[in-house]
């Protein structure tokens, strides 16, 4: 690689007084003074949350209004700080969602333990738990900082579902049963 010698021109007399450089600096800072400020004035102005942001974990419902979690407890086992506590439960056989295997009786996430890693979202086979946009959570007691099932579904809302796998499974089972009947 050829060596390029940098020519440093000696400073002119005016440059050696540093006054032109100071004046140029003053002009720059004056422009900054008159410019709009960079600061985001929280809480009046909120930051824009990018997609894929890992906020507070929430449970979601599908567009048909069914709660998607089936209490498989995979998220409870994968959670590194063991923030999730699930009590699985039965679904009554006369309920409209009886074709789903089970649903959680209790589902608690202790936000004082949660590290917002998103492993529960990655591992969930039902796409039921999502880390959404809430970034600020406070409370006056430790009990307040534990999100129970009702709160989790409140925070989660409804997200679109591309699969409806239990309904598809139910439809496929009914078709198979109909074919058996016919045949």
């Amino acid at each position, binding site marked *: 690689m050829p060596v390029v010698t940098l020519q440093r021109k000696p400073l002119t007399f005016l440059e050696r007084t540093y*006054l032109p450089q*100071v004046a140029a*600096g*003053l002009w*720059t*800072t*004056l422009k*900054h*003074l008159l*410019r709009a*400020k*960079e*600061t985001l*004035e929280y809480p009046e102005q909120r930051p824009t949350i990018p997609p894929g942001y890992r906020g507070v974990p929430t449970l979601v419902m599908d567009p048909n209004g069914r709660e998607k979690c089936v209490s498989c407890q995979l998220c409870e086992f994968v959670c590194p700080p063991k923030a999730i506590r699930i009590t699985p439960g039965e679904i009554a056989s006369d309920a409209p969602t009886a074709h789903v295997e089970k649903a959680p009786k209790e589902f608690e996430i202790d936000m004082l333990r949660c590290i917002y890693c998103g492993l529960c979202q990655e591992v969930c086979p039902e796409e039921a738990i999502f880390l959404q946009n809430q970034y600020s959570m406070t409370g006056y007691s430790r009990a307040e900082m534990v999100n129970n099932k009702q709160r989790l579904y409140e925070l989660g809302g409804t997200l679109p579902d591309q699969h409806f796998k239990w309904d598809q499974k139910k439809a496929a089972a009914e078709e198979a049963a109909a074919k058996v009947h016919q045949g």
Partner: protein
Amino acid sequence: MIDLWNSLPSLVQGILKGLAVICVIFPIAGASSMAERKVSAWIQGRHGPNRVIVPWFAWMPFVGRFLQRLGVFNLLADGGKLLFKEDPLPGHVKKFFFMIAPLLGLVPAFTTVTVVPFGAYLDQAGQLVPLMLANVDVGILAVFAVASLGIYSMILAGWASNSKYPFLGSIRASAQLISYELSLTLSVLPVFLWINAPGQDATLSLVRAVEFQSGTWQGLTFASWGGAWFIFIMPVSALIFLVALFAETNRLPFDMIESEADLVGGFHTEYGAFKWSLFFVSEYSHMVVGSSVFILLFFGGWNPLPWLPLSTLAGWLHLQHWPVVVGALSIVIFLVKVLFMIFFFMWVRWTVPRFRYDQVMRIGWQKLLPLALGNLIVYALAIAYLQPKL
């Protein structure tokens, strides 16, 4: 009202003037510190303090919110905090000197305020009467002599603190301040050579300096020099004075005394709430007095524009018979200029990086002092040549 004033015994007059200095300079210093925070924030793209509000101001529709955004009430919050905070007196300091050092700093800072004129009015005979607390004839000499005493408080604070960082800070402070004193005083001598023509009574008064810049436009003759401000006639003097003033008030780029990065706080490291705020009151009042002297000597004092003196403006507005209004107008003009200078101090602070100790010494002794001497000689010769013509 002037008769009422003159009838008071001089001791009462003196006490009232002293109280006036304290009651005016403390708020100015506080406001300067708030202005510093806001201006430095704006230059850096931030907002600065804009949340503090006193409850009954929050109800006022526009003014309350405007003042809140401007951070004006933060001054009250800061003042209250500094007053009620625990004032630390570490065990390892020399207690008596530790406690009197900030007071020793305040005394010269406030005393110089008394000899600086801040306005003028036209009395019945049309003569310009300056507004100042003590109209001494040695104006500028009194300012320089008393202001130099401010060094002692920094040296004493650093010594009494009995600790590394304050000690180094006060050593640097004494070196810097005495280095730039000479250039400071030499740079204003051409102004006083010009003012004191041979055959007249000699004076060092700052009022005469402003009077000399209160001429009108007389066409392209030598007589028009009477109206030009000294910054146009003696720009190099003004520049040397400005640089030396930055050094004397410990403002960036000559900030190495308090260079927070390497000295924590310099001479005021061990100081806490109220004593620390007294150091800053004295620093800001030195800034205000220095700016005032600069304005009086080089920027025409209370004259609105070059070649437009105060008396002409009063004539245009038909205010000759209302000395109170003319006085208020002159104070307003003077204050606007001083405030611009203080803004300039803050503007430069956030533009230029700090000089190193050796750079400060080199500039003080090897660059500024020869320049000031050369400037003096050049102007002495020029005035000797031109004086008969003027």
